[in-house]
């Protein structure tokens, strides 16, 4: 197989399958959660559950001061990774073109050099996250194969993307094919690992926030 045929396959049927599994998997996960239902709270409430739920979806993005003080580097690193990953994903020119082809939506891109820098920062934060996971006693104790798998499939698209951009290893066509395949791997794996949190975080924040809002307690 040549690099060109690999790229054609990666962009064609492989991509369709990956997106299909991703959407099916995520919807299934959502149904698995919602179908379990929740009993209504019969206690006399003090406030609005809906307001509390919506508020908590936003406010949980900000850490509590006392916990931040205990783990400033780990928490900051988490922000760096998420912001870096999203900027690279959404503001690299070819990514925007790709999304435009699929959806018709488009927006201004960031310069390639800045994206490359962000990609390196994102990878550095992932490496640091791995070091924490291997060395911190709590993280080591609670981590499973799942955590390392999720880590690897998250790193690969950033790494292959950076290598394709910098033309450092392999001809561009082959690297680009690997880049797209690594994204497809991420899409396929995501619904069956902790990466579901990319959507379910809103649900879990909502549930705690809803109860807190209804009961008039902090969340």
């Amino acid at each position, binding site marked *: 197989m040549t690099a060109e045929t690999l790229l054609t396959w990666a962009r064609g049927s492989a991509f369709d399958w990956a997106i299909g599994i991703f959407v099916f998997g995520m919807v*299934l*996960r959502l149904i*698995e*959660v*919602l*179908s*379990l*239902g*929740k*009993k209504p*709270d*019969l*206690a*006399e409430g*003090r406030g609005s559950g809906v307001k509390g739920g919506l508020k*908590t*979806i936003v406010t*949980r*993005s900000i*850490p*509590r*001061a*006392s*916990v931040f003080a*205990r*783990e400033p580097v*780990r*928490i900051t690193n*988490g922000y760096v990774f998420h912001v870096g990953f999203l900027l690279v994903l959404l503001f690299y020119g070819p990514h925007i073109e790709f999304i435009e082809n699929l959806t018709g939506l488009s927006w201004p891109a960031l310069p390639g050099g800045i994206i490359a820098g962000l990609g390196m920062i994102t990878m550095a934060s992932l490496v640091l996250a791995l070091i924490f996971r291997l060395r*911190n*006693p*709590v*993280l*080591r*104790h*609670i*981590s*499973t194969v799942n*955590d390392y798998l999720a880590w690897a499939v998250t790193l690969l698209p950033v790494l292959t993307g950076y290598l394709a951009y910098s033309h450092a290893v392999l001809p561009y066509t082959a690297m680009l094919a690997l880049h797209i395949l690594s994204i497809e791997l991420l899409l396929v794996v995501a619904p*069956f690992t*902790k990466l*579901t*949190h990319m959507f*379910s*975080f809103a*649900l*879990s*924040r*909502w*549930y*705690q*926030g809803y*109860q807190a809002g209804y*009961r*008039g*307690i*902090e*969340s």
Partner: protein
Amino acid sequence: MSGPSVEKGINFIREQIDAPVASFFSSCVHCGMCAEACLFYTQTGDPRYTPIYKVEPMRRLWENEFTLWGRIKSTLGIAKKVTEEDFAQWEELVYDGCSLCGRCSLVCPVGNDISGMIRKIREGFSAAGYAPEGLIGATTRAITIGSPMGVRLPALKAQIGHVEKETGIEIPLDRAGAEYMVLLSSMEIMNFPEYLQAIARIMRQAGRTWTISSKAFEATNSGIQIGASDLARELVQRVVDAAEELGVQTVISPECGHAYTAIRWEGPNLIGRPFKFKVRHILEVLDEFREQGLIKTRGKEQARLTFHDPCQLVRKGGVVEQPRHLLDLVAENFVEMTDHGAMNWCCGGGGGVSANERADELRLKAFRQKKSQLDEIGVETLVTACANCRITLEEGLEEYEMDIPVVGLTETLAEHLVEEDQEGQG
């Protein structure tokens, strides 16, 4: 091999898995931040006390039975099942190493109510018979005698007699149509009768009618702590029956944390219907009296003092500002601990830990979190609003040779009442 009791435990845990629980497990990224919020971890450094790890058997059950991937693994026989050994191993984490303080739930970045899940998993552990002796004993006494400490009506009547003699105020027992029905914790009846005395004096000054039910005077609910909803329901039902029989408007939960959670939030959900009366914590009632100008005080405490927020009031109950308003009336030198209010650190004795003798050593170790909070501000008096916190704090302070008296807020307030003109009115 799993015995029948373990199967029962697993069934009980399964029943607790609802949409919120499934969303929590779906979202957990194993970031470990919950450990940093837990005094059992911060003071021991033992990663087994990481809050989310304490519910691992529940997570495994959820994965095996409520997710596609888990079901595939179960079908192929490669899923890790929940076993009797897991119950034996996790019992200590679920009961000794958690006071249900709820701090972890407030810091989880994906919003998981972890302490709520620990409350839930206890249903399975108690059903399987994997619960600490101390808590089993307290729960049995609560059901058979009516009080986890074994306090019976004659003991209450004796205390009532003492208080009446000392204050000259009649304590109304079983008075139908009173506005308020006051609940007490056994600890208050036996160790802190000053609470009852304070209530009598404050109610007289506020000019409100109140009563104590001879059928349901106990506020604490060991069923909630051990995680046995059927027993918790029975204890709540006794209060509901008494309150509805007497036709009171409001039931007052005493200076106790979990008693408030039990009757205020879990109560209606346990009996399956809303109450026909309101439930308020004593601090909410006192603050209402203050707002309505029904409390007249004179003079202020001069000692440098601070307030220990009981977890179930401040985090699960939303009673945060009321104690501060009340202390404003009677304290000149009130200072806050760092992390006061919603992020206050637990004393270590909540969630049944103080009733579990096996956990004493761990609890005293965890108390160092409170110690460092107190060391930082150097106070002469510690005020709180939970009899269980009070005992736990007293024991911890004694262990670390810290000479700080612990007092209840209600009695502190009562000491400053202006009541010359009311004496003799009863």
